[in-house]
């Protein structure tokens, strides 16, 4: 059984050794809050943990809140309802998620992973901070339909929460600031960086890739970047990937910027754990990754804002042979991070 994060721990140990000159690797404390050690192959995060230093109690409080349906108006929907760990915190099998009163949302619930590296959230980038992000689903009429004021009232009426919040924040009563900071301790911890690909990228044991998978990686680098670039496998930009010719149902990024140039653009999702986050696209229209590749190969629709990466002269899309599709699909499987998907510390019943 391999260690959870051998390289980062080793790096940390070496750094400590260099800094202190007298500390051995074995003396480095184990990671008590998941995700608080940066993966060696990742870029610098946007959300600095110094603005909300995680503690074990704070993280666990955030986890309890994440899975607590009392955060919704009628106590039926939790954050975890639409963000399931085994599906990389996306909503397995749901094109559109159902919220309160069985109401349907308008977009596909995105995977929650590596959120510390995102500058903006939601498919249209309308949310600008990890800490205020939960207010959107909490107050949305078809998601949790609750107010922050009411949630805080419910939490204060619960002796267990009152006690746990007091331990973490050292002040009473519970307010929305504490609620948002505690939730952020959990969501900031959702780091997925231990797929087989990561072990390969960090030259760790367990990082063996087949010839087909390596061909897939090369293809991805040639044909799918910059959109799915960097070790996060997204450039976090907004792009029109040719799903439709018109955008009456959902203007995407233009809903926020009101710029015609942004019509039909949606946030480029990460490919990490993509084999587990079906269905795909902002409205969950594709059930399988084969359908997604077929879309890029021959399904791309023209429009005024089509991404330049998907148009060469008058040719639309990214031509892919059947062998190329096979290789790409093989590579995408290597981005599945079983440790993240099964880490008890992140689960509803740890």
């Amino acid at each position, binding site marked *: 059984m391999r260690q959870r994060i051998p390289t980062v721990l080793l790096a940390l140990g070496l750094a400590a050794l260099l800094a202190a000159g007298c500390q051995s690797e074995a003396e480095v404390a184990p990671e008590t809050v998941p995700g608080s050690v940066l993966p060696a192959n990742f870029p610098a995060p946007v959300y600095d943990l110094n*603005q*909300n230093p995680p503690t074990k109690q704070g993280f666990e409080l955030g986890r309890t809140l994440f899975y607590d349906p009392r955060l919704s108006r009628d106590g039926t929907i939790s954050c975890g309802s639409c963000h399931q760990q085994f599906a990389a915190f996306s909503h397995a099998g749901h094109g559109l998620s159902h919220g309160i009163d069985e109401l349907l949302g308008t977009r596909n619930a995105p995977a929650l992973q590596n959120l510390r590296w995102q500058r903006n959230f*939601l498919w249209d980038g*309308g*949310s*600008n*901070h*990890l*800490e*205020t992000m939960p*207010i*959107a689903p*909490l*107050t*949305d009429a078809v998601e949790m339909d609750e107010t*922050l*004021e009411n949630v805080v009232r419910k939490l204060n009426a619960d002796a267990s929460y009152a006690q746990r919040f007091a331990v973490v924040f050292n002040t009473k009563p519970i*307010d*929305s*600031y504490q609620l*948002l*900071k505690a939730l*952020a301790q959990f969501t900031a911890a959702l780091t997925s960086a231990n797929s087989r690909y990561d072990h390969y990228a960090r030259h760790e044991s367990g990082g063996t890739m087949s010839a087909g998978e390596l061909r897939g990686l090369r293809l991805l680098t040639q044909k799918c970047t910059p959109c799915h670039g960097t070790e996060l496998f997204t450039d976090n930009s907004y792009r029109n990937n040719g799903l439709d010719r018109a955008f009456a149902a959902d203007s995407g990024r233009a*809903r*926020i910027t*009101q710029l015609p140039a942004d019509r039909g653009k949606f946030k480029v999702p990460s490919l990490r754990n993509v084999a587990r986050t079906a269905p795909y696209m902002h409205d969950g229209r594709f059930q399988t990754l084969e359908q997604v590749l077929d879309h890029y190969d021959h399904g791309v629709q023209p429009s005024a804002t089509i991404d330049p990466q998907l148009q060469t002269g008058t040719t639309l899309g990214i031509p892919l042979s059947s062998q190329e599709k096979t290789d790409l699909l093989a590579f995408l499987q290597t981005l599945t991070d079983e440790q993240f998907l099964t880490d008890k510390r992140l689960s509803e019943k740890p």
Partner: protein
Amino acid sequence: MSFSFSNCKKDAAAEPQVGKLAIEMDHVVGNSSLVLNAATPNYTTPSGDRFSVSTLRYYISNIRLRKEDGSEYIQPESYYLVDATRPDSKVLTLENVPTGDYTGITFTIGVDAARNTAGAQKGALAPSDMFWSWNTGYIFLKLEGKSPEADNGAFTYHIGGFEGANNAIRTVSPAFPTGTTLLIRTDHAPEMHMKVDVMKILTGPTEVRFATFSTAHMPGASAVKLANNYAAGMFRVDHIHAN
């Protein structure tokens, strides 16, 4: 005893001298006082549109006081949410203002860009119904009411936006009445009385006609027009009590 007392005096003298200022918001509509929720329209715009007001809420932030020599006192953590229905919110109390003779005031109507992007906030900035979650940022000013001229009989203006062309943050420096100086002293608590004229939201560079312009619900061109309106004279220093 006398020895320790003189020590105290000495320590106190080393501290900067500070005083207190109260800024009172007096809500009016043109020449009338603001009376909320009138059963029939109690105000009329210059173009003849009749209306009543049910909601007036706005943020005042980053208050700065200026002395004649141009030096400024910048109030730290300076965020206030004024609500016409809450009398206590209409008095902005500034503690620990350095003593001196001040001749000017500057403040922001709304919330600065930094706090619009800084995550969870406390106090006046705690997210409330003055905060958009789907397009993160503060609503700087809300004005809602009724008008027979409006399509569905009502108008709702929610003004915010802090980026690019949609930036609705406005900073104003309403002049003191001629010859008036604000004297901050350790033993005085002066009161500045501000006339806050709702009619200015509807007039100014763009005169609002309810029939064609009855909503603003997001950052954008409509919000910017209304912000330009209220930046052009909604706040006026009426008088200052030295007390």
